């Protein structure tokens, strides 16, 4: 007896099938759940099933029975090769018995899903959130409800087929949820839409508040500069002969670096005779104020995608940006590289293409006309990249470490793969070449408890925040796994995430324009 037939018989022996048979026997329910011909005496041939839910007898005669869509969804989601198994059933009566038994099981599953759906919709009703809460707390609550709605997938699982599509440049799939999921999932889709409509304006409010806070802090710095001595200026850059010149030399065009004669305040008491100290600015216009740290609402802000990793991580990012604005204003650090300019290069990757996507951005930054689809195809053909090959096995899924820059090389971009390097080398690569690629531990980079520690991820490094002593305080990245651009990662977190991948990087030298 084939394994498929055994599986069907097991299904028929399920509690649902048993209860159907019993109820039929006592006459408590319609004796035929499939209203139709007397199949035992029928001369009609066996049924052919056309997915999703069309049945006809061999020979073309229409099937007079009724099989509802959710019934078919249930069978399609429950069995491996359901159509093949159905077709291989030896007789029409066996097919009808199978459909009868599974119909009862489907009906019971539908009732269960209905009850659970109602409970989840009640639980995630936005009206349960107190309207008097502060915007930040309301946002947090709505985001939690939105996460909770995801449990709808589990509720609908008995009816969900096929699996959610993978994301792949090669298959041209985008991770969409199949149309066939709609009948069960539509209440959850509607709830997501409803919550999304509430979340978006609150996100804007939270970012705006953060922007205001940054401005307030800078105003406070200005007041300090006007009324207090430089010594009282909080966390001011440590002095030292030639500090500004050194910055100029190290970081061409760095905003912090000023010539002493332009910047020195004769009234400011230098801590040591003959030493030049970065003096406190007198007014806000003197501050080394970079463009607004948190951009106005619009494309630049949208690219940063603050809330991609959730509420708490968004707050952390916003605070980091406020801190950087303060560092800049008080002359503590300068930005190396052009993280704002390169933020426009970021994309949201499909499939395990982080390594390809990082190289893609480096190529685009050098003016190459490339697409992710072409690069993924090229990488696959040359063995630099592999997809999740779910149907055939033999998967790898990603980019081998030592091939992190092979696409770059093949497109004429000179770079160096280094199995292990230092943050100083990374900063230097950004200074002279404009960027770098690093391999990181995803969990540590995203600060995400739902991930395992081992998994890796490649990101495109677009800038560094460096102090007057040349010490890097953090790096800016474009992360194609989350769609975040110009995310500042403080140095401690960066190093912890990088260490798990042995501080692997791809570095660039000057004059690496492939068109030259």
């Amino acid at each position: 007896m084939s394994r498929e037939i055994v599986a069907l018989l097991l299904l028929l022996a399920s509690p649902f099938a048993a209860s159907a048979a019993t109820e039929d026997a006592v006459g408590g329910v319609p004796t035929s759940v499939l209203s139709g011909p007397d199949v035992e005496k029928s001369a009609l041939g066996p049924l052919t099933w056309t997915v999703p839910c069309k049945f006809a007898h061999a020979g073309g005669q229409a099937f007079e029975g009724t099989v509802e869509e959710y019934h078919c969804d249930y069978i399609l989601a429950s069995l491996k090769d359901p159509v093949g198994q159905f077709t291989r059933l030896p007789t029409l009566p066996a097919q009808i018995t199978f459909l009868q038994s599974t119909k009862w099981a489907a009906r019971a599953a539908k009732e269960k899903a209905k009850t659970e759906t109602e409970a989840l919709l009640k639980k995630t009703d936005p009206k349960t959130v107190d309207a008097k809460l502060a915007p930040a707390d309301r946002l947090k609550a709505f985001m939690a409800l939105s996460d909770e709605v995801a449990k709808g997938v589990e509720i609908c699982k008995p009816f969900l087929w096929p699996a959610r599509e993978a994301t792949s440049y090669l298959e041209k799939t985008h991770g969409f949820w199949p149309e066939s999921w709609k009948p069960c999932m539509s209440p959850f889709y509607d709830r997501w839409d409803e919550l999304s409509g509430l979340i978006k304006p609150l996100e804007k409010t939270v970012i705006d508040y953060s922007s205001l806070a940054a401005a307030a802090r800078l105003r406070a710095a200005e007041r300090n500069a006007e009324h207090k001595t430089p010594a009282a200026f909080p966390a001011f850059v440590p002095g030292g002969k030639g500090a500004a010149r050194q910055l100029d030399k190290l970081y061409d065009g760095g905003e912090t670096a000023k010539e002493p004669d332009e910047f020195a305040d004769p009234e400011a008491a230098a801590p040591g005779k003959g030493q030049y100290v970065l003096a406190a600015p007198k007014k806000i216009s003197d501050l080394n104020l970079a463009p607004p740290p948190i951009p106005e609402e619009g494309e630049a802000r949208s690219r940063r995608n603050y809330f991609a990793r959730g509420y708490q991580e968004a707050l952390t990012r916003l605070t980091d940006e406020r801190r950087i604005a303060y560092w800049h204003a008080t002359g503590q650090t300068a930005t190396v590289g052009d993280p704002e300019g390169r933020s426009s290069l970021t994309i949201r990757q499909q499939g395990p293409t982080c390594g390809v996507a990082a190289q893609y951005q480096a190529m685009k930054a050098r003016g190459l006309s490339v697409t992710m689809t072409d690069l993924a195809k090229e990488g696959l053909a040359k063995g630099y990249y592999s997809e999740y090959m779910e149907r055939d096995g033999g998967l790898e899924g990603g980019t081998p470490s030592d091939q992190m820059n092979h696409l770059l090389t093949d497109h004429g971009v000179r770079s160096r793969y280094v199995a292990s390097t230092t943050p100083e080398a990374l900063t230097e690569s950004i200074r002279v070449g404009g960027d770098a690629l690093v391999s990181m531990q995803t969990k540590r980079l995203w600060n995400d408890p739902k991930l395992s520690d081992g998994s890796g991820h490649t990101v495109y490094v677009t800038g560094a925040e460096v102090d007057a002593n040349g010490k890097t305080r953090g790096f800016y990245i474009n992360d194609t796994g989350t769609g975040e651009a110009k995310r500042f990662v403080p140095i401690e977190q960066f190093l912890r995430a990088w260490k798990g991948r042995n501080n692997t990087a791809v570095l660039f030298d000057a004059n690496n324009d492939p068109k030259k």
Partner: protein
Amino acid sequence: MPITIRKNSLFAVALLAALSSCQDSGKWMDRLDADPLHARADATRRAAGCANMALELGRSLPVPEHGGTSLAVLYYPSKSEPGRSIVLTPTVKAVFALEGAAGERCAALPKSPSKELGAAAPDGLSMTAYYRDQLAVYQALPATAALYGKGGTPDAEGLKSLKSFAASFQAVAEPGLRGDYYRLNPEFWEWLRSAAGSSLPKA
């Protein structure tokens, strides 16, 4: 703007809590990274035979091999997005000695259809708890493997170590990989069940 100030204070409180939690988990990460056994397990990624492995692959916790003198880890792909990660069928196995650098080997597993096996991290486990428990696994592993190698019934101290290993392992191991962990060495897990009263379910 008094309202703004109030909201900012709220941000500050929320942020302090987040930063404190982050710093806390950072300390456990540092301690885990400093653990020599953890470092050796990580080094298998660079072992001969694994040099061409995709950098995205995650690494499992180590499981004692037969005899208890070496440990095995699996490498597996995962589908990850913020807040969600699914483990796929492991593709590579590496083995390394419990002590010393000899005997390290790494090879691709026979090709098999890939499946989504389940979550990559236990639900509800904070970053701090995750790294603390993972460190506990590595710290308990040498004694556990030695006891397994010796066989027989452990003394009270050994039993304590075994229970610590079993509890930490189950707390932190990838839920989607439980079957693969068991299949790495069923003999070990059954021995652990008989010796410590707790183990992974049979797969």
